[in-house]
């Protein structure tokens, strides 16, 4: 069956919003990369680097009030420190605060970021990626979606820069558009998991395994992210 005009319009609106964010994340990753450009490998991450990165993060959070956290993560092969480099900040009421992670393999609270999909996928493909919704209980301790883009230095992958959005916030942002679609509709991630639905029929976090029963999938035209819009007749 063919999708209705309101559904196609909604898909275009969601694509426009997501593309704008994607471009900003890409830009943020490029500016983060500049901090280390021309530096010998393995990279060192100095206090000065972290201070400059914090400024970039502060500016990104300033201009994106729906984003709750942002930062950069380095591949252990790219940096000097064997303990990994996870430089991430979250928004507090009047300031931003750096998060501390356990980066020791085998540690009790080990944050195994190299195996987290938002890192692993960008590392494998060299492209932007999005991961979630997921319960990030070792990191943000929130139900979030993480956007990330690779940090490339001299054409080589060095890590990712990205941002987190609370699912609660994303729901507020996308709901008016989804509600403009008559009938049940939901934004799905690349794995077929509901990100936001416009009714109780599709709840966030659930997986949609088939599109039987006349339901159709409209791709959301954003490169590499794999979002789609599930629409019921």
């Amino acid at each position, binding site marked *: 069956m063919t999708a209705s005009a309101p559904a196609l319009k909604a898909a275009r609106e969601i694509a426009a919003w997501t593309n704008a964010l994607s471009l900003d994340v890409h830009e943020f990753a490029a500016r983060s990369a500049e901090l280390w450009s021309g530096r010998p490998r393995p990279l060192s991450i100095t206090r000065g680097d972290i201070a400059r990165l914090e400024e970039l993060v502060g500016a990104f959070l300033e201009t994106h009030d729906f984003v709750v956290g942002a930062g950069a993560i380095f591949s252990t092969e790219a940096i000097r420190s064997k303990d990994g480099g996870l430089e991430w900040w979250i928004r507090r009421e009047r300031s931003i605060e750096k998060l*501390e992670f356990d980066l020791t393999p085998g540690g009790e*609270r080990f944050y195994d970021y190299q195996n987290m999909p938002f890192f692993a996928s960008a590392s494998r493909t060299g492209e932007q990626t999005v991961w979630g919704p997921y*319960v990030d209980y070792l990191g943000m301790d*929130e139900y979030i979606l993480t956007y990330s883009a690779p940090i490339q230095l001299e054409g080589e992958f060095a890590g990712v820069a990205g941002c987190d959005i609370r699912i609660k916030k994303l729901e507020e942002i996308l709901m008016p558009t989804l509600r403009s679609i008559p009938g049940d509709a939901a934004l799905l991630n690349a794995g077929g*998991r509901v990100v936001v639905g416009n009714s109780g029929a599709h709840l966030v976090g659930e997986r949609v395994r088939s599109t039987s029963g006349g339901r159709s999938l409209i791709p959301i035209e954003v490169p590499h992210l794999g979002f789609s819009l599930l629409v019921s007749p």
Partner: protein
Amino acid sequence: MAPTTAFQAHVYRSLPETERSDAIVNRISKAISLGLLKVGERLPSETALSEMFGVAPSTLREALSDLRQQGIVATRRGRSGGTFIVKQPFMSPDATRRWLQETSIAELRDLGDEHAAIAAATVRLACERAESHEVGRLLDLARALVMSDKSEARAHADSRFHIELAVLAQSPRLTNAEIRLQAETVQALWAPLSSTRDPERVAAEHLAVARAIADDAPEEAQRLVLQHIRHDIHHLVDAKLSLGYPTNQEERP
């Protein structure tokens, strides 16, 4: 709604500052013993902490001083100073014994009932919602239990597995409930008392649950996890009985 009776007014009276200080000590100790805050980590500033906990700065300082006296945190001055976590507060065998003696069998059973309710829903949702690569991580966590030979490390591995089930269920609330339940029981489960749990057997039970989730078999996963929790509670009851209720023969002169 304003309290209407004297009883209600008593129940809902504002918390005295001493109870708040104790609550902060308990909250931080539990978070560390569960591995949610780690040794070496710096706590937020005193101002930020008293703001987040919603207590007066003096109350917060009292709590920190208590934690310092217990050797759980240390405060360093200077540019890279602050309050750091320096010790894992694992329940001492004495404290575990006391906890088991004070907790009735009815309360242990009830703890198991709540855990069973949470875990049954959790594994069913995990079957529905987990993706295959996520189950791989669950299997790794299940195996981690036999890698460690210290009771503290086993307790962490055990609780990480159960918390991960709730993460796979995509539910922040079930995750929080599981974290709270783990904080209540996991140290007593692995405490080196008269009878210790066999890590091989517990790991085998965890693996079976993980495989049922991988096979997308919600009925089987639920049956296995309920059986697993029953074993845990049996262990706690046995541990309690071996301490608190001497047999008749022992009591007779």
